């Protein structure tokens, strides 16, 4: 086996995202306590938790909006916890926040911003892929994002997040403010791009996302109280504890 083969094999055995013992918070207020999660290549991992559980704080820490107090974040085996946001994004992470789009820019400009790191030819071809996947956006590409409905904005946000050809898409509550119809559409979108090899880490309150989860984490008050498959979750009381504070 050549050195290159060995390197490739090692790369395939390490997690795409590996978070270990992360502590962080805002100023002196600690929100996350020794949090560890990982995402393998091609996985769809859902982080469930009620409001205030620390889901958004976790995602912000992963992308670099919040500093890591303690612990480590590895992307593809490489430590990234001290890297700037743009460096992390250029290494294949894409983040879809609850807002997700730049309201004052047109749909096309939002997509161009999403593919900011791509060379112009690659950006053009990726935009064509996005327009194929989201035909409504193509029709209205010259309109500002502010003119879109909540559901359409979410679609644009998903398309923008996918423009950079990421390896891992991190989504913060993609169902927030959406009708059940649009939630179903977002889920089918995740499935479609998952089939293309993209991994997803999705923080959600909406348990409908369990339909597509390969693995689930349940977060409660900044601590991980469950890790496992959906079947294992159904046999566990972690959801009741996280959502209703019920301790059996």
């Amino acid at each position: 086996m050549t050195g290159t083969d060995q390197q490739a094999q090692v790369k395939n055995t390490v997690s795409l995202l590996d978070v270990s013992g992360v502590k962080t918070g805002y100023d002196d207020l600690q929100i996350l306590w020794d949090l560890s999660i990982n995402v393998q290549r091609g996985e769809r991992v859902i982080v469930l938790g009620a409001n205030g559980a620390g889901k958004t704080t976790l995602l912000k820490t992963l992308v670099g909006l919040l500093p890591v107090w303690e612990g480590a974040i590895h992307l593809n085996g490489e430590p990234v916890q001290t890297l700037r946001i743009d460096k992390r994004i250029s290494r294949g992470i894409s983040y879809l926040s609850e807002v997700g789009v730049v309201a004052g820019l047109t749909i096309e400009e939002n997509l161009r911003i999403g593919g900011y790191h791509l060379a112009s030819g690659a950006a053009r071809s990726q935009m064509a892929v996005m327009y194929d996947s989201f035909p409504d956006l193509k029709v209205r590409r010259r309109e500002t994002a502010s003119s879109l409905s909540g559901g359409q904005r979410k679609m644009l946000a998903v398309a923008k997040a996918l423009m950079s050809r990421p390896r891992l898409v991190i989504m913060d509550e993609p169902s927030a403010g959406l009708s059940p119809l649009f939630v179903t559409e977002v889920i089918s979108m995740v499935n479609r791009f998952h089939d293309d090899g993209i991994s997803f880490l999705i923080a959600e309150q909406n348990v409908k996302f369990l339909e597509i989860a390969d693995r689930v984490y349940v977060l409660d008050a900044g601590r991980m109280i469950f890790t496992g498959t959906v079947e294992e979750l159904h046999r566990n009381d972690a959801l009741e504890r996280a959502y209703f504070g019920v301790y059996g």
Partner: protein
Amino acid sequence: MRRNKLSNAIILVVLAVLFILAPLLYPNQSVPFQMMAFMTLAQGVNLLYGFTGYLPFGYVGFFGSGAYGVSILVLLLHWSVIPAVIGGGLFAVVVALLLSPLLRLSGAYFSIGSLAASEIVYYVVSNPNMQNITQGPYGVNLAGIYDPNTSYYAMLVILLIFTAVVMYVKNSTFGMSLLAIKEDPVSAAMAGINVVRRRVAIWLASAFAAGLVGAVYGWYVSVFYPSSVFDLTISIFAIVFTLFGGGGTVLGPIVGTIVLYGLYNTIGVSSPQYFQLIYGLLIVVLVMFLPQGLTSLLKRRGINVP
């Protein structure tokens, strides 16, 4: 895109022809010269305000730094004029680099901070203890390099360059990233845009514009004082001209300067009391009904404004 390039080329050609012919048609060369100076300053403000939302009340600090930069390079270091003018612009860039922590502020705090910073630069330059370097409060005499004709065309070149820079920024991915940062810095950062680096880059470009204008102004007038090149009115004019025409466009600062500076020269000198009245009314009407500037009238009708 092709239409954009054509309209941009037309704007540059019209500006060049207008200001080449102006001294032939208008007896007082200093009027078109100052109009070019304010147009370039307005484009400099436009780079910063139109694309990032930072409103620099202390913009005159860079203008004054450029004027004093050229005087130091000519009088103390005996540089020839053109390198000294470029050096004057770079003086302003160095000042902007030192003041770049101001970009951590936003809104009114940034505006007031930049104003205070320009006052600091003014008091440093005009300090009598600085007489060996800046001549302190006693003014600078650059009579040895006085050349109103060459400096007039130098100002035209700078105007065309910075108008072209605004055209580039407006139509480039770089400019789009600035607009994204202006709208939502977090979202822009999440797209992998280095927010701090881009803000600093456009801040330095804007300072360079003002520094070069100040340097050429110093060359043109050849005698000036700290109070004349650090006059707050220069900032106010550049800002008002930009806002009046419409920030974030190529045409806005040009239209704003032509209308308001034209008005200033038509009645501002002969009947200053009426000028102030009309000027004030125009600005009030603009703020109330056209906050995006005159060019937004065209945008509302679906016309693409370069």
